[in-house]
């Protein structure tokens, strides 16, 4: 197990300068993800138009792995259809939990920098939290821009590893 290989420059860079970090003015979908075990909290907002993710942003408190995963996720799904995004969520989950052979065809691209996480069961949920939250957001009918009083959809990762 090479734990240091996890903290590669790509991940450190996205942690230092997260892309699409902040809030979204006209979000149509929104979810909050929690990792109750470490107190991490991630807020994801996106704008879906004709089933296309037009805009996406995130913010919250988390470890570097979670933040970098969220940052890279937003760049990966921006401009994708909901279906493609959902497929990528599944692939990422399978990679992180070690269910995927990276030699098989996939669409993860640079996201494979997270493949080492499979050897660190306690950290898998850090990497997956943004993806869970995105899934929750995509399936939420909550439009936070118009119904701000609504409880945002909760994505909670527990001991699923």
């Amino acid at each position, binding site marked *: 197990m090479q734990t240091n290989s996890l903290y590669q420059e790509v991940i450190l860079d996205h942690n230092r300068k997260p892309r699409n970090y902040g809030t979204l003015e006209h979000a149509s979908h929104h979810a909050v993800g929690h990792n109750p075990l470490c107190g991490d909290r991630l807020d994801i907002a996106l704008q879906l138009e004709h089933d296309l993710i037009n805009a996406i942003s995130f913010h919250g408190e988390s470890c*570097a792995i979670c933040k970098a995963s969220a940052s890279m996720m937003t760049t990966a799904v921006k401009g994708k259809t909901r279906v493609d995004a959902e497929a990528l969520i599944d692939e990422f989950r399978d990679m992180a939990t070690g269910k995927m052979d990276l030699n098989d065809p996939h669409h993860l691209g640079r996201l494979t920098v997270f493949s080492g996480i499979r050897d660190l069961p306690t950290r898998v949920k850090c990497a997956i939290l943004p993806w869970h939250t995105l899934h929750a957001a995509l399936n939420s009918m909550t439009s936070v821009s118009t119904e701000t009083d609504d409880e945002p959809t909760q994505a909670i990762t527990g001991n699923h590893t």
Partner: protein
Amino acid sequence: MNLAEATRGIAVSTSLDIEKIRADFPILDLKIDGKPLVYLDNAASSQMPQPVIDRLVRYQTTQHANINRAVHYLSETATMEYQKARCKLQQFINAREDREVIFTSGTTDAINLVMQGYGRKFIQADDEIILTTLEHHSNIVPWQMLAQEKGAKIRVVPINDAGELDIEAYKKLFNERTKFASLIHVSNALGTINPIKEMIAYAHQQGVPVLVDGAQAAPHIPIDVQDLGCDFYAFSAHKLCGPTGIGILYGKAQHLESMQPFKGGGDMIASVTFEKTTYAAIPHKFEAGTPPIAAAIGFGAAIDYLSAIGIDQIAAYENELLAYATEQFNCVPGVNIIGTATHKAAVLSFTIDGIHPHDIGTILNHDGVAVRTGHHCAQPVMQRYNVPATSRASFAFYNKKTEIDTLITGIKTVQKVFL
């Protein structure tokens, strides 16, 4: 032997021979990622020395049968050994009688036993239970469950910035509705040693019984329950170099006798008909079912092992480690120690500016260093310091100063990675 050889190892002010002690712990020879294991997560669970492992093997290979039941040789032997373990625990905490020592599955189980057996019987609506900010979740949640069921109230003793209890505030919490206090002896999250004897004495002046969560105290402080005067005292074997799945609840006999049993079943009865069951005398009343016999005997062996070294000696050496580590930590810019009580056990909780504890833990692991990261099952403490989590190094008597150096080097590596 020349003079240099003769004086080697005497440089440290403790009289413990750490290398000899380390040789008793086979797990300390492990390599992690090719690096020697530096185990600094002793507050979560400590490691088991060979004599305790051997005792478990001897029991399992030559002495095992169910206890308190049959008249055959093995059952008699197992029953006797199980009872001997109870007596070792009795002596370890200086309880008046062995029947005041109940085997439980651990601290959590012991606290739940008191909540169920004492709390549900004696605590009513509007009664108040005193806890402290420093409590482990296992000494919060059971009382919350009880409070919810009964309509009782939880009152909480605050801490200052150093992580010390506000004793004046504690005293002010008492009123005529106060029915119970359940207090942590040593904080697992910060290491604070509370003035528990003084707190018990004050509660008793008010006529309030006290349970002490001694999970972190028993490994570091000689415990004398008669001197403390506590009504109940709980701790787990696995933090005392013993097996998991076993711990004890000490309770004053008069309390234990007045309490409801927590679990019903075999071994806890005097007689059973479908109309009525008469419960066995203590401690059996609280030990329903087949207990973890091997674990209890292993617990006894762990107590023998620690007593042979001496808890006093252990505490003195661990204090040295803590002082050394604190000094080293204070020399690293960007590292903050959380919990700076005057009286502390060998626990060092810390944060590093701008770096999440989980990232710290994972990178330290690469150097073979095992620390705990997270909320330490003490979320109210984390909230008090406004942090989601901390990293925690906790030392045992088999740790060395050079291991603290490895930790410090690791921390500097973490800072470099995130520069």
